[in-house]
């Protein structure tokens, strides 16, 4: 990996140079929450954000997404995508995209996802955990790939890691903005990472988790939480790895229809419903457990489906905490 330094003075010029790739989307404060929005000027960014409400999946799997247009009885594909820059992604979100890649780019690749993924330039950014973060215990607190450039905060600028050929090209074209990394920078980088590692307040011990959860299938804890849960589906919407979608055809006028897909949530009763009225997950308990098992599935090639971003905890109206549920379920085995 190539490491270079971007000084604070050059940050704005660097930011503006990214517009050469495409529109820039970065974290912006909206009321009390953060959100990835189109930004024109550096001053609009909130770089000290903890987490956005919707993860960057919204750019790749859109909340409402037109797949086809019906014209003269035939489905037509939409146009291609414009290039865009995702600026300031935290490493958990980069890991989230990698998990989505495993699903959507698996053969046959989803063409809508793929074209957007190819169009996106991803600029990561270091962060400090807050009371909801537990990415360190899942190993998703540091991204080794899945980005083009990754900026690590230094007292007088940024240490930049280059993660792709595209990232190299951008650094190459803007060579005058960057300087070599000094020993002092490396010391600051190391100090930052150490400080960050000690700042985590939550963790989930991975050891044997998948097995323990499976064994605790009939645990009373699931039932207790299913009582508290409102089944609103917020956790699905804000999860960087939740990806269920529902497809519907909508008529926009008498002659034209569109086939759209939109986010679906496994907390909705219709999620397991099939024609004829049989429901494979009829109770809230089934649906609650299903989400936790889906997130905690240990894929031997990819690890857990959860990246520890803490969104489901922060945005849960019933204040259910993901880690606490899993800990209690595990504890109930004794």
């Amino acid at each position, binding site marked *: 990996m190539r490491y270079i330094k971007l000084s604070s003075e050059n940050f704005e010029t660097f930011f503006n140079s990214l517009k050469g790739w495409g529109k820039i989307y970065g974290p912006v404060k909206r009321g009390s929450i953060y959100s990835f929005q189109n930004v024109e000027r550096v001053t609009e960014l909130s770089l000290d954000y903890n987490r956005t409400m919707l993860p960057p999946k919204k750019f790749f799997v859109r909340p409402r997404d037109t797949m086809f247009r019906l014209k003269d009885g035939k489905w037509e594909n939409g146009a*291609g995508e414009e290039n865009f820059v995702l600026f300031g992604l935290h490493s958990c979100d980069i890991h989230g995209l990698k998990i989505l890649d495993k699903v959507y780019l698996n053969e*046959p690749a989803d063409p809508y996802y793929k074209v957007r993924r190819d169009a996106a330039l991803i600029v990561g950014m270091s962060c400090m955990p807050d009371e909801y973060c537990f990415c360190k215990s899942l190993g998703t607190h540091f991204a080794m790939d899945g980005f083009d450039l990754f900026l690590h905060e230094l007292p007088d600028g940024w240490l930049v890691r280059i993660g792709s050929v595209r990232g190299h090209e951008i650094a190459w074209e803007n060579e005058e903005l960057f300087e070599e990394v000094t020993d002092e920078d490396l010391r600051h980088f190391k100090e930052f990472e150490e400080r960050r590692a000690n700042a985590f307040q939550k963790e989930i011990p991975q050891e044997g988790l998948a097995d323990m959860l*499976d064994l605790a299938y009939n645990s009373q804890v699931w039932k207790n939480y299913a009582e508290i849960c409102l089944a609103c589906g917020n956790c699905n919407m804000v999860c960087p790895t939740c990806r269920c979608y529902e*497809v519907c055809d909508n008529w926009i006028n008498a002659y034209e229809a569109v086939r759209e897909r939109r986010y679906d949530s496994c907390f909705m009763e219709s999620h*397991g*419903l*099939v024609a004829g009225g049989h429901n494979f997950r009829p109770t809230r308990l089934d649906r609650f457990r299903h989400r936790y098992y889906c997130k*905690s*599935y240990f894929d031997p090639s990819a690890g857990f489906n959860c990246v520890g971003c803490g969104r489901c905890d922060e945005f849960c109206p019933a204040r259910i905490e993901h880690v606490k549920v899993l800990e209690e379920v595990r504890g109930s085995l004794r």
Partner: protein
Amino acid sequence: MSENPYQTHDARILEVKDLTPREKLFTLRFLDPEVSERFTFKPGQFVIVDVRGFGEFPVSLCSSPTRKGYIQLCIRKVGRMTRFIHRMKEGEVVGIRGPYGNGFPMEMMEGSNLILVAGGLGMAPLRSVLWYAIDSGKYEHVWLLYGTKAYEDILFRDEIIHLLKHGSSMNCSVKLAYEVESPSCIYLEGGFSDRVCRGVVTDLFRGEEFDVNNTYAFICGPPIMYKFVIKELLDRKLSPGRIYMTLERRMRCGVGKCGHCIVGTSTSIKYVCKDGPVFTYWDALSTRGLI
């Protein structure tokens, strides 16, 4: 954009046949001869039917791959989409994409006995196996044990009655169970008292002997049926690896993206659409919630 896997191919409805008051059999052929040529499938696979402007739904293929040039779908009128397709006539065009799923490993089973256990609409995917086995002639003996509500609900009634009468010449024995008594059933029972009875599908196992080392079982039916049939087969010492079942879930994409058909727990997650819909009983033992 390269080839879009969600794009459906035009297929014309060649024939619509009423099987029962609720089910119709649609015979379809792809408009594009190239697509028609390329479309090969295994028994147990399914397609997604696209009624443009109204939506998509998954249906299992009920014709046999040995009968080329057309595909057949048996569709029950149960919801908005199926009500719509039931109104369609011969000559109209729908979209088809697929085939999806793993299908039954028919080659592996050559030379064996096959027991097909069907309940209600579960007959549709097993009809594909039935005709594949009979047409190919590569299987020792085929039993079809078919349970329905009433005489009126027997799908493919002509074929079933034909096989009741003449099945032995094709190495095939058919047995029927019905729940609701009616004159037609009693008439049928009178003719084939050893093979038609009032009861449920598991009653049809009575009196049948099969070589457990050379037999495969296929199950398809309503969700409640599986565990009773499996118990019956396990009691007869059939290995779980020889029990194949095909399952149903809400499927939107057919290719493992939309997430509706995910089943399992933290140690084993399966997508019914791409890892299935055909599973063995071993899979059901290792993946919770499969049946």
